[in-house]
């Protein structure tokens, strides 16, 4: 039983031998810390056994109420097959570092190359990096890229008025050190108000951002028009989406997207309290301005195909303050899980899942609309996974009552609730409708 770290393997004899080899009497002699800043080691944190920590955490998490979540708005989950958990937990993947020695890390590099490749297929854009932190930081990096590239001269970043507050705040912080400014454009019944957008757009615009589906779940019908507005203004068109939506909705490349961002971890991760995986894809033209890691194919000395991190001169460890981003540690392991999940589903499974996101949402909205005092969806649009419902009664008490009945939904307006349905909660949709009826 070690009295120190259970993960330091030293026997007493070994420690003595090593101290001897170094030529000091004890471990303390190795520390060169002036007396006035020495610390006595008393954090007041008691060591616990592995079992006790597990028991404690189980008890802690058991304090979370077991609600069936009909929640989305940017953080989405689908059923993650056991295969993904099992393979991603293999220590060779989980406990490895960034692939600075590609000769002995071909495995992870290939997975990341495959992840990039999947996003290339799904977005239609030829370059995808191998992860950003989340959708918000990916959007923010896209804006910074727009601010850097030569093709763009403007400084205004136009975003929808309904942008998720977290994304907006991150975007503001990421552009605070640049000359970029962020403005909103109006929406029209849940889609981009393209006329209003066109009026706002001029040569001063660096980037126009739109989402499909929107944060309120509406399928965007005017993407090509948005792309045209951006193009006319000499701005980049940045499209926000996710890995499942990409399988069904219009291909970003075909509507003129210059950058695609969003959450890639709608596949691969369980509900994770907002932990994400930033998707980032763009045109070849901007390759050397891309933030984050890129894996490329090359050859080894024997002429065999091999993979390696590439174009590292964009990155902070080489380029320092002139790097395309400060990102170093990214979300590689989440990207690995997402790639595994996409591979598990295959094209059939992925398209099927995406279709269900439309039909399940449509059907749940219809069921809710059948209730007196609810109208859903409020926007006369197609929806993907989620939609907003208008309630005659104030929304907040309804949500609170639903919580008592075991369901979580979003409150997004005084009389507006937002409801998200996926394969994870679809089996409880009828129960949700019944609960609604109960509490209305």
């Amino acid at each position, binding site marked *: 039983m070690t009295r*120190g770290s259970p*993960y330091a393997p*030293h026997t007493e004899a070994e*420690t003595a031998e090593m101290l001897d080899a*170094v030529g000091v009497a004890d471990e*303390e002699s190795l520390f*060169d810390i002036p007396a006035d800043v020495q*610390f006595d080691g008393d*954090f*007041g*944190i008691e060591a616990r056994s592995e079992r006790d*920590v597990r028991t404690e*955490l189980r008890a*802690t*998490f058991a*304090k*979370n109420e077991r609600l069936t979540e009909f929640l989305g708005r940017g*953080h989405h989950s689908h059923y993650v097959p056991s295969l993904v958990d099992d*393979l991603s937990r293999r220590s060779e*993947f*989980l*406990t490895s*570092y960034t692939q600075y*020695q590609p*000769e*002995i*890390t*071909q495995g*992870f590099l*290939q997975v990341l*190359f495959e992840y990039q490749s999947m996003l*290339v297929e799904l977005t239609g854009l*030829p370059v995808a990096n191998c992860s950003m932190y989340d959708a*918000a930081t990916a959007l923010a990096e896209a804006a910074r890229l727009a601010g850097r590239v030569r093709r763009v001269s403007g400084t205004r970043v136009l975003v929808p008025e309904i942008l998720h507050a*977290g*994304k907006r705040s*991150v975007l503001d912080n990421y552009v*605070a050190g640049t000359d970029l400014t962020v403005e909103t454009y109006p929406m029209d019944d849940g889609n981009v108000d393209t006329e209003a957008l066109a009026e706002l757009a001029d040569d001063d615009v660096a980037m126009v951002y739109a989402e499909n589906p929107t944060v309120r779940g509406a399928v965007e019908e005017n993407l090509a028009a948005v792309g045209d507005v951006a193009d006319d203004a000499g701005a980049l068109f940045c499209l926000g989406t996710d890995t499942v939506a990409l399988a069904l909705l219009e291909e970003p490349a075909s509507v003129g997207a210059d950058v695609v961002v969003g959450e890639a971890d709608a596949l691969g991760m369980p*509900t994770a*309290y*907002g*932990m994400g995986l930033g998707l980032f894809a763009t045109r070849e033209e901007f390759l050397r301005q891309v933030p984050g890691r890129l894996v*490329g194919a*090359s050859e*080894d*000395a024997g002429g*065999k195909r091999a993979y390696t991190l590439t174009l590292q001169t964009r990155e902070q460890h080489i380029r*320092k*303050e002139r*790097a395309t981003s*400060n*990102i170093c*540690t*990214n*979300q590689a392991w*989440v990207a690995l899980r997402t790639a595994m999940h996409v591979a598990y589903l*295959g*094209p059939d499974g992925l398209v099927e899942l995406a279709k269900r996101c439309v039909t399940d949402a449509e059907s749940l909205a219809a069921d809710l609309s059948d209730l007196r005092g609810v109208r859903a969806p409020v926007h006369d649009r197609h929806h993907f996974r989620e939609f907003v419902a208008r309630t005659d009664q104030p929304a907040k008490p309804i949500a609170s009552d639903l*919580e008592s009945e075991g369901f*979580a939904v979003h409150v997004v307006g005084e009389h507006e609730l937002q409801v998200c349905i996926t394969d994870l909660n679809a089996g409880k949709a009828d129960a949700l409708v019944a609960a609604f009826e109960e509490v209305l």
Partner: protein
Amino acid sequence: VYEPLLAEKNSTRVAVDEEDSPLPDDLTRDSVELPGLSEPELARHYTRLSQMNWSVESGPYPLGSCTMKYNPSFTEDAAADPNAAVHPDRSPESVQGTLELLYDLQDYLGRIGGMDAVTLQPPAGAAGEFTGILVAKAYHESRGDDRSEVVVPASAHGTNFASAAMAGYDVVELPSGDDGRVDMEALDAAISEDTAALMLTNPNTVGLFERDIVDIAEMVHDAGGLLYYDGANLNALLGRGRPGDMGFDIMHYNVHKTFATPHGGGGPGAGPVGVVEELAPFLPSPRVRQRGGNYELFDPEESIGKVHGYRGNWFVLVKAYAYIARLGDEGLADASAKAVLNANYLASQMEYEVPYEPFHHEFAATAGERDAADVAKRMLDYGVHPPTTKWPEFVPEAMLTEPTEIENLDSLDDLAHAFNAAMADSDEELANAPSRTTARRIDQVSAAREPRLSWRALEDES
């Protein structure tokens, strides 16, 4: 060993058929092409790929400044609790367990760093740096104090430069002193009323403790600047020194280094930021506090807002908590002691010059006349992972080595043998290395010159 790409095994194009499509044709794509493989095929694919990958459980991984510790299995199990998988938009009342864990981790990290307030939101160390600098900026701005520079030692991590620049600061590079530490005269010259912050790593990136830290802090504070602690090397100090006690105002923690959460091949990490009381109002929103036995989220009064769409890398934070709880005071202190002992023992067994001493948990050996990168490639042939090479730049042909506390005497001896044997090998052997690995030396130049970044790019080529 060669494993074909998924797309080389199967590539299937599926029409997003209009007939059974739930959407009108003009709102959907035409088709999707992806690999369509069965579960057994995928299991083999990823199992084989995993076996072509070095990890902490493969052997020594002495990357300087990366702190590749063993990642305890049980932390994975703890984080996999289904009750821990909740949506961030849940009402705080319904996720008291999640908030309790966040609160307790804020508390632990505060104690460990000697900091008064902690945010857990930054999703990685670099994001923590950026957050810390934004906090410094907001602080100065709140006082109407317009400062334009951040001072960074030449030996600092590249992220320090990049993070400061991202926040809009001019970066003033501070040359290293002859002894490898901060040169007090140079510092005096670099610091001014324009200085928003000085970013320091301590022990620094060659493992040396900045002995003048109290004077440095005073100098920065006297100029109205703030002192930022880069937590990358905190594993050297656990229980023996706290940034807060040394005069640092802001720090980030790399939980994937110091607190043994897995690196995952390059993330996810987490980069919590701690600050002194005066800066707490500027931390990102929301933070967690305890009120009458309940936990609640709150927005600090002058918060900079958000640096992540939600609350950061939740599962990583759970694992960090579990690790800290497992080790406790004694374990944390022992981790540092053994990390420092291991570095010193390893150096004593290596036939390399180590220009800067006394180092702590890591040291920069020099490959001298040899190319450090070549020596590293040759080390691969001896079955170990080499150290970080050619960095920091002020050490010629640097081999920045950090064995961490998890290696034992035997594996340190193995590592020393690999170092020494590689160094003793001929130039030709070095140039041809590695030869015993999955791939031989990989052509980086052509990879960058003609980037091929997807299987479609490979296909277009052939």
